């Protein structure tokens, strides 16, 4: 056991798996000697050399396209996209190619790879260093989507993702990167994909969140408890394929739901969650499920704390839902 930040835990996961499996390579902009702009890959270059920890030219499409080629060849590439806001030059390779390879080739070719990329706001990044594009990838059949909220899960989920046989989008909430340390086991362990965690039990309202917003959800759960509302908080951990059973079980107990995410509301993942809950637990609902999300605007700079669905917005939503 060692105390680690999420950055350290991810770094540790990469090192652990690179030692175990020499098919694993890391590639991206600035991931080499300098260890990435967030230092997530620090030290890997020194240990594994420039054949396995590769600084690339400035071309996300090239990073992902080449990684796909490596995956087809039989390697386990882990491309890094410096900010998820910059994933769009690679969008075609991800949604048209990586996501569809297994299916379209009748199962001949597979594309196991983990696309690591920092996500989310709260670090004064404005428009282009703050976005949360997860729903675009969930809408694309063939991709798994993961977003850990803490160092332990980050390492365990990353190891599961690298060993998974399908392409995984691994979103790392940068607001959490160095926010807190946590005990993380050394060596190997995995946290299974597609299993949500009930991180706080409660009976009145279910709050669903992931990544950095989990802490806001927990804060709100504390806030409302003072007012006699007992909130259950679910950390999705893997967004897709979804652990719907854990959600429905909770909703059947509470009958009330608040869904939290940073991305804009329209066609965000909250809409899918709300829909599935309505479809599967309609008769258990005591109140309309509520979404507390980023606004349907580009991500602002100065006003970002007004943009994000922080506790100050979750709490009233939970209270209102509870008394609906």
């Amino acid at each position, binding site marked *: 056991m060692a105390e680690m930040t999420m950055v350290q835990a991810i770094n540790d996961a990469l090192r652990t798996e690179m030692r175990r499996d020499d098919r694993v390579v890391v590639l991206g902009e600035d991931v080499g000697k300098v260890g990435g702009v967030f230092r997530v890959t620090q030290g890997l270059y020194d240990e594994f050399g420039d054949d396995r920890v590769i600084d690339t030219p400035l071309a996300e499409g090239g990073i992902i396209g080449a990684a796909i080629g490596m995956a087809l060849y039989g390697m386990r*590439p882990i491309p890094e996209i410096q900010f998820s806001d910059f994933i769009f030059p690679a969008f075609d390779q991800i949604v048209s190619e990586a996501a569809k390879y*297994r299916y379209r080739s*009748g199962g*001949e070719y597979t594309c196991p790879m983990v696309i690591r990329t920092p996500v989310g706001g709260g670090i004064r990044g404005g428009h282009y260093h703050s976005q949360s594009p997860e729903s675009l990838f969930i809408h694309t059949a063939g991709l798994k989507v993961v977003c850990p909220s803490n160092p332990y899960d980050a390492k365990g989920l990353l190891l599961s993702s690298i060993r998974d046989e399908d392409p995984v989008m691994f979103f790392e909430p940068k607001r959490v990167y160095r926010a807190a340390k946590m005990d993380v086991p050394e060596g190997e362990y995995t946290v299974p994909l597609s299993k949500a965690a009930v991180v706080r039990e409660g009976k009145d309202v279910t709050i669903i969140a992931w990544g950095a917003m989990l802490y806001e959800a927990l804060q709100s759960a504390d806030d409302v408890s003072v007012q006699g509302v007992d909130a259950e908080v679910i950390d999705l951990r893997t967004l897709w394929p979804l652990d719907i059973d854990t959600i429905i079980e909770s909703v059947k107990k509470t009958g009330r739901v608040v869904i939290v995410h940073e991305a804009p509301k329209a066609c965000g993942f909250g809409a899918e969650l709300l829909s599935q809950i309505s479809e599967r637990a309609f008769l258990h609902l005591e109140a309309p499920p509520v979404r507390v999300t980023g606004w349907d605007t580009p991500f602002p700079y100065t006003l970002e704390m007004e943009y994000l669905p922080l506790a100050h917005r979750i709490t009233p939503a939970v209270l209102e839902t509870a008394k609906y």
Partner: protein
Amino acid sequence: MEVQTTQSVIRTPEKFLEGVATVIGPDGRADASHDPKLDRALVKKMYVAMVRTRVIDERLVTLQRQGRIGFHIGSLGEEGCILASAAAMRDQDWIFPCYREFGALLWRGMPLQDYVNNMYGNANDPIKGRQMPDHYSGKKYKFGSVSSPIGTQMTQAVGFAWGAKIRKEDLVTSVYFGEGATSSNEFHTAMNFAGVFKTPTVLLCRNNGWAISVPSEKQTASKTFAEKGIAYGVKGIRCDGNDVLAVYKTVREAVERAAAGGGPTLIEMMTYRLSGHSTSDDPRAYRIEDEVTSWRKADPILRLRKHLETLGMITDAEDQKIRDDVDAELKLCIERAEATEKPALSTMFTEVFKDMPQHLQEQFDECAAGPRPKAQH
């Protein structure tokens, strides 16, 4: 039909090929100084493969006109560069196709029946009827998976070769694309990554004069496509794509250079698309018939046949037999393909992921429960 076109120049083979060295001369003889001196059996084998490709191509167009298959995109006039470049790859090398290279796939050993099943998208289609015709995949044959988005295969072919290089395996990749695809994002990144990481990759640009209705000279202001290599520190070469020996030689040298650590090569194979872009296209709407006529004379099959004649390696009867053989084989394949049912409903839901997740299992169950659609196309 009177044709108006935006085409400003008729690009005859002579104009198009200006300054490009050829091996097989107009008289059918090989220029001794450039002749790669291939094994005669190999040359003959390439010839047979080209004729077979042509016959299959023509038959598929007919099937499409008859409404028996949905679509075909062929290689009429481009068989020379496709077959010779495929033949020039070593057994351990991998080929990444664009969409006109079914001839290369058959060359690599896919049974004709499998290919025909793919054209029908039936239950025996290796890709389970999931994609349009001609979107084959041939991993067993070290042959990639076709997808429609232009250019994506280039970066992947570079990545594949790069992987092999990292893993120190003696393996070269080749990748096909049209001259239109040089405008894509993917050409740029593929060339750049190939250059920077010196990947063992041969980038095969089929310059067939057209990208659907857009003539090649409107695709770029550079004088040739080969010289685009300069921007990436990648060797660029043009060759006469309808000259089988020239193509073989150029590609083979590039493969050997790549295998020896010399890095990638961009090869512009000058050829011509004699047919429409695909069965969905009517080229009379945009191109001048004279241009097409001029290229019919430069047909790579005629050219190689002439060469074989000078070597006394072909007779009319033999030629006819090649055609009859493939006709007969094809007929059987088509019959079988047409007698084969559609892919099972389950194939719509399997292989999205390795294991079927809960939501797809539920959707599959829902779909299987019916009712079945009345509507057909």
